[in-house]
C-alpha cells in the first residue's frame, strides 16, 4: 500500500521516482489552516465594515478622533464614511464564522506546533544553520529571490534561509500575536486574564494591532504564492497535496 515508494518496475525509466517531501501532518495542517485563515480573513473584513475606524488606547467611537479610517463604505448608518449608501449588515454570520474558524485554526495550529516540536520538524527543517545566517549568505539569498531565480532540483528538497526565517516569523510571531490580540478584544476573556489587554495598551489598541497583523499575514500569503509560482506551481502544490515530489 502507500508505505512503499518503489515505482512499478514496468514503468521504470519512464515515470520519475516520487519521494516523500512533506509529512502527512504538515500537509493536513497546511490545508486546514489555509481554509480557516481564508474564512477568518473574509469574515474579519466583513466585521471591520461595520466600523471601519481604528483607535489607540482603551476606547473609541464615532465621537472619538480615530487613529485612521479606511476609505470604504460601512454597514452601519452611524459611521460617517463620505459614501451616500450603507452596506447590508453581515456581522451575525461573520462573527459566528470568525470564531468557529479561529477555533479550527488554533486547534490545528496546536497540533502542528506540538508535533513540530516533538518530531524535530522545526529544528530540522525550519531552524536556519548559523552558516546560513552570515551576512554574505543572507545577501546572496536576497539577491537570488529578487532575480526570481527558479531553485535548483536539490534546493527543492529543503528550505532556503529566507524561507526558513519567513516561516518561523509566521509560526512563532504573527500567528501567536494575532491570536493574542483577538483574545484581548474579548470582554469575558480579559476579565480572567486582564494582562492580555493591559499589556497591549487597551482594547482598541488590540483591535488596531489585530488589523495590522492581518495585513502582515496577507502579505506573507501573497509572497508565499508568488514564490510557489516562481518555483513551479504544479509541482509544489502537488507536493503539498500528495506529499510526493519527483526526484
Amino acid at each position, binding site marked *: *500500500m502507500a508505505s512503499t515508494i518503489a515505482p512499478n518496475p514496468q514503468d521504470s525509466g519512464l515515470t520519475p521516482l516520487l519521494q516523500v517531501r512533506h509529512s502527512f501532518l504538515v500537509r493536513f495542517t497546511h490545508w486546514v489552516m489555509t481554509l480557516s485563515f481564508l474564512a477568518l480573513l473574509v469574515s474579519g473584513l466583513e466585521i471591520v465594515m461595520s466600523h471601519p475606524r481604528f483607535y489607540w488606547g482603551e476606547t473609541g467611537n464615532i465621537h472619538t478622533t480615530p487613529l485612521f479610517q479606511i476609505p470604504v463604505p460601512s454597514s452601519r448608518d452611524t459611521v460617517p464614511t463620505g459614501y451616500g449608501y450603507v452596506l447590508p449588515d453581515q456581522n451575525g454570520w461573520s462573527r459566528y464564522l470568525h470564531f468557529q474558524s479561529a477555533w479550527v485554526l488554533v486547534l490545528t495550529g496546536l497540533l502542528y506546533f506540538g508535533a513540530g516540536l516533538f518530531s524535530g520538524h522545526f529544528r530540522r527543517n525550519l531552524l536556519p544553520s548559523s552558516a546560513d545566517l552570515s551576512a554574505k549568505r543572507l545577501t546572496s539569498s536576497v539577491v537570488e529571490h529578487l532575480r526570481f531565480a527558479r531553485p535548483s532540483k536539490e534546493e527543492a528538497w529543503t528550505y532556503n534561509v529566507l524561507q526558513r526565517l519567513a516561516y518561523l516569523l509566521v509560526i512563532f510571531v504573527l500567528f501567536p500575536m494575532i491570536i493574542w490580540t483577538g483574545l484581548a478584544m474579548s470582554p469575558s476573556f480579559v476579565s*480572567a486574564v486582564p494582562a492580555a489587554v493591559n499589556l497591549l495598551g487597551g482594547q482598541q489598541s488590540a483591535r488596531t494591532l489585530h488589523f495590522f497583523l492581518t495585513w502582515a499575514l496577507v502579505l506573507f500569503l501573497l509572497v508565499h504564492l508568488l514564490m510557489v509560482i516562481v518555483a513551479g506551481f504544479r509541482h509544489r502544490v502537488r507536493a503539498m497535496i500528495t506529499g510526493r515530489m519527483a526526484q
Partner: protein
Amino acid sequence: MNKLSRRKLITTGLTVTAGASGLLAAAKLARHYGLVPPDSGGIYGPGETLTYAAQRLLTRHSLAREFSRDQMSKEPFANEVDPLGAEFQLSHQAGFADWRLAVDGLVARPASFSLADLKSYPRRSHITMIQCEEGWSYIAEWIGAPLSHVLGLAGALPQARYVVYRSIQKDWWESIDMADALHPQTLLAYGMNGGELPVGFGGPLRMRVARQLGYKNIKYLTRLTVTDNLKQFGKGLGSAAPEGGYAWFAGM
C-alpha cells in the same frame, strides 16, 4: 497488505474510535455541567459550544476590568433606537413613577418592583467598558441594584438556570445564565456617570452585563423570567440575537 500498512490501519482505527468516543463523552459532560449554549445547533454550533464552554470554565467568577474616573469617556455613544411610543413619553413626563419591573417564572414569590423599590436596595456602581459588536466602545460609570439581590427577594428556585429579560421593545429580549445573573457586576442599572440613566442609553432601567457585548445590555427593561429551559422562549435559541443571526453568548 504488508505489515506496516496493517499497523497503520489499526492505529488509525484506534485513533478514530478514541477520538469519536472522546467527543461523545465530552458532549455528555458539557451538557451535564451546563457548558452547551442554547444556539449550539447548526453549522456554527461547534464553535459556539467551544467558546461558551471555554469561557465558563475560565471565567465563571472573574470580574470585568474596572477603570478610574479619569478614564471615563467624555462623549459616550449610543445607537439610535426606534421611536418608543406615546405610552413611554407619558411615563417619561411623569418621571417614570409608574415604571414596573416584573419578576416571574421559577421564583417563590413573583413580584413587581418600581424604580423607587430598586433604588432602595443596595446601590452598586462600577466604571466599566461597554463594547459594541461593531467594534466601538466607551467607558462609563453604571449605577444600579445587583440583579442577584432582586432574584434573592423574589426567591429564585434552586433549579433556575437562566434569566430571560424583556424590554418595551418587543424585538429586544435576551437571556443570561446564572453565572452572569448572580455575578456581582450584573446590575439593574438606573444611573450612569453619577446621574440618572439617560433615555438614549436605556433609561429608566437597563440590564448591565459587564462581561458581555452591548447587545446583551437590554434597554427599557420591564420583565425578568427565571427558567430552567430556554426552549420555550421564542424560537428556542435563547434570545432574539440568535434569531437575528447573532451569537447568544456575547462574552466572545
